[in-house]
């Protein structure tokens, strides 16, 4: 009787520990949960994960000054100021948790931030909970409202042409260059918010696997220029480009990815190629913006 009871207790104990371990090890690691005053349970677990995976670049204090930071370009994100590049929310506002998780899963193209897709969903949530402890902003502010994005408009030559006019009008080329090579007249002088040199995105560099800093889809591209990439020179154009017009700019920007197979490139090719976009007003494509495009709220003051 006593022996049976011991066996039952042993089985229960093993089942309980295994269950707990399984619950925590659904990703590549559960990290090393460490005691840390003032943290909730998620952040406690996140702290362990942070020490294992993030601390070398982002630093013990989350200020982007980890041991490897001096050798990294661009510099790791400083979580103490809670300014994030990839958001669905307007410039100057905190991102949604889902924005941070997307960054974690995707990584950040053209930086040293890798994809952390192998981490489990629970691990990612815990990491985000811990990262949010580095700035008081998370206690005093709510994340911004995600920007409104109307359904994508059809890709037509008119849409691409209008996108090209917007590209000239809002002067994307000043940084990204007329061909989108990241070699505009201001490109060599750009610095981020920590005064570190930073290069504009080169649209033409990638092929079919083209990725932007904050995603791969047309929706991601729309969000990038409408929300801006906070902490970098890339501003938000939400105040100056109407939502539907923004899709036209997306379609034009896709044609700058000349080595990528896309509906946009097919439509442009069928219409006669890039030369067909040049109107008499912008044929020289130097400093003069196209005249036929109006901007959001335009009309002077």
């Amino acid at each position, binding site marked *: 009787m006593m022996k049976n009871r011991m066996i039952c207790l042993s089985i229960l104990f093993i089942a309980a520990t295994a269950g707990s371990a399984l619950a925590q090890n659904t990703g590549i690691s559960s990290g090393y949960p460490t005691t840390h005053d003032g943290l909730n349970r998620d952040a406690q677990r996140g702290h362990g994960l942070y020490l294992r995976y993030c601390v070398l670049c982002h630093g013990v204090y989350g200020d982007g000054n980890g041991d490897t930071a001096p050798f990294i370009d661009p510099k790791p994100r400083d979580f103490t*100021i809670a*300014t994030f590049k990839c958001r669905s929310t*307007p*410039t*100057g*506002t905190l991102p949604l948790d889902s924005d941070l998780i997307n960054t974690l899963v995707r990584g950040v193209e053209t930086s040293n931030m890798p994809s952390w897709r192998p981490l489990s969903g629970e691990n990612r949530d815990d990491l985000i909970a811990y990262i949010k402890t580095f700035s008081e*902003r998370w206690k005093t*502010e709510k994340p911004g409202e995600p920007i409104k994005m109307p359904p994508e408009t059809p890709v037509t030559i008119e849409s691409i042409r209008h996108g090209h006019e917007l590209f000239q*009008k*809002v*002067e994307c080329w*000043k*940084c990204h260059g007329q061909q989108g090579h990241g070699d505009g*007249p*201001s490109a060599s*002088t*750009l*610095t981020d*918010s920590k005064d570190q040199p930073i290069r504009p995105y080169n649209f033409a560099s990638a092929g079919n696997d083209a990725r932007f800093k904050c995603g791969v889809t047309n929706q991601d591209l729309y969000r990038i220029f409408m929300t*801006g990439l*906070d*902490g*970098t*020179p*890339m*501003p*938000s*154009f*939400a*105040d*100056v480009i109407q939502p539907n017009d923004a899709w036209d700019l997306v379609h034009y920007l896709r044609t700058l990815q000349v080595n990528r197979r896309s509906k946009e490139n097919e439509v442009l090719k069928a219409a006669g190629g890039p030369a067909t976009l040049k109107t008499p007003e912008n044929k020289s494509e130097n*400093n003069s*913006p196209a005249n036929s495009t109006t*901007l*959001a*709220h*335009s*009309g*002077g*003051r």
Partner: protein
Amino acid sequence: MRTKQMLVALLPLLICPCLLFAGAVSGKVTYTGTPARQKPIDMSKEPSCAKQHPAPVTTETVVTGPNNALDNVVVYVSSGAPDDGQVPAQTVTYDQKGCQYIPHVQPMHVNQELKILNDDQTSHNIHPLAKVNREWNKSQPPGTPPLSEKFDKPEFIPVKCNVHPWMHGWFAVLTTNHYDVSKDGGDFKLPNLPPGKYTITAWHESYGTQTADVTITGNETKDVKFTFTAKPY
């Protein structure tokens, strides 16, 4: 009828008797030592701006005048002001003209409306590098209406345009309406201060802050002088 007119005339004094005894603080900001030489700005990459400046343009990190006068110093009541926390209804305006910020330093009250204009024929991006407030970055192409913004915490915020790297300015977000920026030879004036004890602070973007305590006893103007130590680098 006459009594009614008199009452209307006296109403502001009944509401705020301090107006009967409004003192002021005025003075001058100067420097000792050798200030850094300002660097010439090359605007040739932006011809529409370059042509607006027949005379050479330099950086504005230190702007001096005759007799060691120091301009662009924000002088404000940092303690003791009677109307702390009252957000003024009028807006302050910050202009981008000739690829320069006008004025170079713009004080404002916390939560006061700030209008940002682009009077140039080129796109600017206005990028306040706030650390206490929220950092944001907005494009403002030519012909678009002013941006309307507010900052909800006191802070001296550097402002830059990434497209035109020589453009640097400052927002001075304060918790008082009693402020001035030294100009025309380092002069400043803080009017409408009722009797009381005040701390006056002077802030310069390169030389830091100084403070002075003053006591105003009546309808008087107290003279306060600030002298910063200039560095040649």
